[in-house]
């Protein structure tokens, strides 16, 4: 295993795992606490539209994905408020619209789209320096925001109306946090792809939530669980030649099942 570390692609992958487990650990805890997981799903899939357009234009797909993710995050809110649409319908529209745009632009691009699978299912072993930089920026911004404004975020997330009655900048924080969520999702697409990324934002949190009901502890535990699963997934996929993204998700699910099992044994012994 030691010799794995001699490869640049492997150290890059590990670095990517560390950075995305930080952003996913924190943002996932926020999304789960506010019951916004389905919004996350909408943003994730909508970002595929940006990947398709970027492919067509020959620019960095992550850039296209980031633009689409942020726009769809705003768009879901906008369509819900202005379009007088129920939120789940609004999410579904952006979800499928993004996928449709992505598929059309990839079809319009001449030649074979070799990396398509990597965007759908992830390929952490091919992260580039630019990807790592993007991940580092997103993780730092996320950690900093939650460190500086933790109490404010908790108050607004728990009871938005109370926060409004107290004249807190509720709208500003809602937009800031949904933008950070969109960026965290895009940063993780490299790890597990558009289709699987949602579990990076929910499985570690669900596992941590078995043992603790404190937001701070859930975030920290999620980072640890996420990183451990990504590390184990990388090693496993290297030795078995299985796709890394899917392997990571399977390991995360295994952790969750294990957590449930431990909790039920503990409960029985009491």
């Amino acid at each position: 295993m030691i010799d794995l570390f001699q490869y640049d692609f492997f150290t890059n992958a590990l670095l990517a795992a560390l950075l995305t487990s930080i952003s996913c650990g924190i943002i996932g805890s926020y999304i789960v606490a506010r019951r916004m997981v389905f919004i996350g799903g909408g943003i994730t899939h909508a970002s595929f539209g940006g990947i398709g357009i970027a492919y067509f234009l020959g620019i960095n797909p992550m850039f296209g994905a980031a633009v689409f993710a942020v726009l769809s995050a705003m768009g879901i809110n906008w369509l819900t408020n202005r379009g007088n649409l129920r939120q789940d319908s609004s999410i579904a529209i952006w979800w499928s619209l993004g996928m449709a745009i992505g598929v059309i632009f990839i079809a319009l691009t001449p030649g074979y789209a070799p990396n398509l699978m990597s965007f759908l299912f992830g390929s952490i072993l091919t992260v580039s320096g630019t990807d790592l930089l993007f991940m580092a920026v997103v993780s730092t911004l996320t950690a900093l925001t939650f460190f500086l404004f933790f109490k404010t975020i908790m108050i607004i997330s728990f009871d938005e109306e109370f926060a409004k009655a107290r004249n807190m900048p509720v709208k500003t924080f809602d937009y800031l946090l949904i933008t950070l969520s969109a960026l965290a999702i895009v940063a993780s697409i490299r790890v597990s792809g558009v289709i699987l990324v949602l579990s990076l934002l929910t499985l570690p949190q669900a596992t941590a939530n078995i043992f603790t009901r404190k937001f701070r502890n859930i975030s920290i535990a999620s980072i640890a669980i996420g990183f451990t699963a990504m590390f184990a997934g990388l090693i496993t996929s290297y030795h078995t030649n299985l796709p890394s993204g899917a392997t990571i998700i399977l390991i995360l699910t295994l952790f969750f099942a294990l957590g449930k099992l431990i909790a039920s044994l503990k409960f029985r012994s009491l």
Partner: protein
Amino acid sequence: MSELIEIRNLTVRYGEYTAIKDVNLSISQPDFIGVIGPNGGGKTTLLKAILGLLQPSSGEIIFSEKLENKQSDIGYLPQINKFDHRFPISVKEVILSGMAGKNRWIKPYSKKDDKKLESIISELDVEHIVHKPIGELSGGQMQRVFLGRALISEPKLLVLDEPDTYVDNQFEHELYEMLVELNKRMAILLVSHDVGTISSYVKGIACINTEFNYHPSNVISPEQLKAYNCPIQIITHGEVPHTVLGQHDHQH
């Protein structure tokens, strides 16, 4: 009597629908006003307008100088059923969040507020649950915690939205006793659908069913309710100290 809030001809509409119309009410320091009315009659709308969560369609709400710091001078206890009880937040965090305000959003509360926290948790008798996540509380404990959040900023007016739902009779009684005690240092505006219980504690009753009528006494007859166009069911509670219904003669 020192006036805190004066509401003049307040009307709130949601699109075409008029929720409350021409409300006139003045709330002063020792007031304890119970607002009753049918579901959908505009009780919560009135509270939200006072809290600044809804803009008046016409009319105005004038806050006196005593309420210059409008946010923390009004304590608000919302209906507890609207909360996500699985949200990962502790009792302590919920109570302390009551310190938040316009100028305190970067650091809504700090170590300095711990003294206030301590006196509130002992006053409300919640010491033993202070580190628990709110999801593990009973209905009555939950009400105490949210009352703590409303009280920690030492408000001059306490606004409560149906605090008597989702709690047992025992707690309901304790809650009203607590409110009578609190009324010595703050005005209270309480919304309830249960006229029977509140009338034995409040000093004045207001009926709201789109239109608003204030009745400056805690004794109200079914005929008067009818005259106020306030069709609510009256439940008499045997053990409460006041007679709620029936014959009475009082001066206005």
